[in-house]
């Protein structure tokens, strides 16, 4: 038997849950919310931004930086849908442009680092890959990023510049997925960023001349409607500073 109390309690619970999920209007935040800067950043920036974030928190005792790392295009979609981000850092100019065209960039986006592709192979290089043209061999299993994501667009550019036609076994959703398939030895080679080869485990990177023609620029912009312009500006400043450049350089990025 369902009695009145149980049902009432269930209805009450449901209403409470809905109320808890409902968006709160801005301005209810205490001092805590006033000082947090929310940064949406490309997945390949994870390691460097976390390191810079620790420094930021040390240097600004009254501010705190929080990150949301994902594929640049995913983040751009979230920003289009009105996600509460203060700063956006994208892995290529194309994605940043889409946010700027939506009038979400509060200022002109600034380029802060450059990345370049490498041929990543498992440490033991089972297929004996040495150059980009080796990837055209049908016996070599290659993973590329999907052309919808920045590393895939860069790979397509590099292969076109080299005049090499590659049929991959898979077009991976992001650069970390392509790295994983290479680390596990499921593919003989993948085209991924130099910084991800460095961050990976059992992989070796092979440079190739066309990589420079397909370099991608990371840019950063403050977003309109940022809740805390002060800390957001301070974070953007740190990324663009000499101190930031040093961290990027150590990780294998080319500071700009």
């Amino acid at each position, binding site marked *: 038997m*369902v009695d009145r109390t149980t*049902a009432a309690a269930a*209805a009450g619970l449901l209403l409470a849950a809905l109320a808890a999920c409902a968006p709160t209007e801005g301005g209810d935040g205490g001092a805590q919310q006033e000082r947090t800067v929310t940064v949406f950043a490309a997945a390949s920036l994870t390691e460097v931004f976390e390191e810079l974030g620790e420094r930021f928190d040390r240097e600004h005792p009254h501010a705190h930086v929080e990150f949301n790392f994902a594929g640049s295009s995913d983040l751009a979609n979230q920003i289009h849908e009105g996600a509460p981000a203060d700063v956006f850092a994208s892995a290529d100019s194309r994605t940043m442009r889409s946010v700027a065209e939506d009038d979400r960039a509060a200022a002109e986006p600034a380029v802060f680092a450059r990345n370049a592709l490498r041929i990543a192979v498992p440490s033991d290089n089972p297929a004996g890959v040495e150059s980009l043209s080796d990837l055209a061999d049908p016996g070599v299993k290659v993973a590329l990023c*999907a052309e*919808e994501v920045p590393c895939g667009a860069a790979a397509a550019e590099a292969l076109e510049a080299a005049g090499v036609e590659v049929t991959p076994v*898979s*077009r991976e*959703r992001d650069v970390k997925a392509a790295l994983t398939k290479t680390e*596990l030895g499921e593919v003989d080679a993948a085209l991924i960023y130099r910084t991800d080869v460095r961050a990976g485990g059992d992989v070796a990177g092979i440079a190739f001349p066309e990589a420079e023609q397909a370099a991608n620029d990371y840019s950063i912009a403050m977003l309109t409607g940022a809740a805390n312009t002060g800390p957001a500006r301070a974070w953007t400043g740190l990324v663009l500073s000499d101190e930031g450049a040093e961290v990027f350089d150590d990780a294998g990025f080319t500071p700009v």
Partner: protein
Amino acid sequence: MTRVSPPSEAAGGRLRVRAGRFPWLLVVPALGGLAFLVLPFAGLLARAPWATLGTRLLMPEVRGALWLSLTTATAATAVAVLLGVPLAWLLARADFPGRRLARALVTVPLVIPPVVGGVALLLALGRRGLVGRHLDAWFGLTLPFSPAAVVLAQVFVAMPFLVISVEGALRGADRRYEEAAATLGASRAVVFRRVTLPMVGPGVLAGAVLAWARALGEFGATITFAGNFPGRTQTMPLAIYLAMQESPESAIVLSLVLLGVSLVILVALRDRWTGAL
């Protein structure tokens, strides 16, 4: 409020609400639940680019992804039925040491994130995997990045639904019919085929439909284990995810296609097996 009729009155125990008493107390949470499930689709429909719907649907890659999704999900369901029904029977009817552990293991794929399932499949059946290594060395067989890998990923996530559904049906079935058939001289095989299966048929069908639907929507394990290659391993959910990276409108269209096709198939099934679901 409700009263379960005794088994003697109707096998399967139908629920009866006493006349004249509408359960108003349940209406508020029920409507809340329904609204919560329907609202997201209203969002999809509101943002759908109806004007360009037709042209987007005719793209060959969309047809390829849809065809691959339908064929692999159906193959995965067939494999799940072939392996899952006997497994459910063992879990429900046989007494063997470690049965509780086996039942718990069957439900593991329901709770681990599908991406982790995909990684586990790679580590087991990949080119350097536990078993895959030997498949490669002895038969020259590499599973990842092939349509077979898509089916395996789907079986891994969908079979538990079928097993749980059939096991529940077996536990709820009246065993006296089987005992009667056995005393009349039917062999175990005949009892299973002529008595047990027809009795749990609706459970098998419901489980198969659930498994098929789950296989159709499978994303994480597929992209991790089978990769993403148009025409070979790119199922609809993968195509939708990648479309989302470039244009949400295309992703919405593809989602609606998948939704429409699955609804048509499920409704058709339901009509064909009237009252079975």
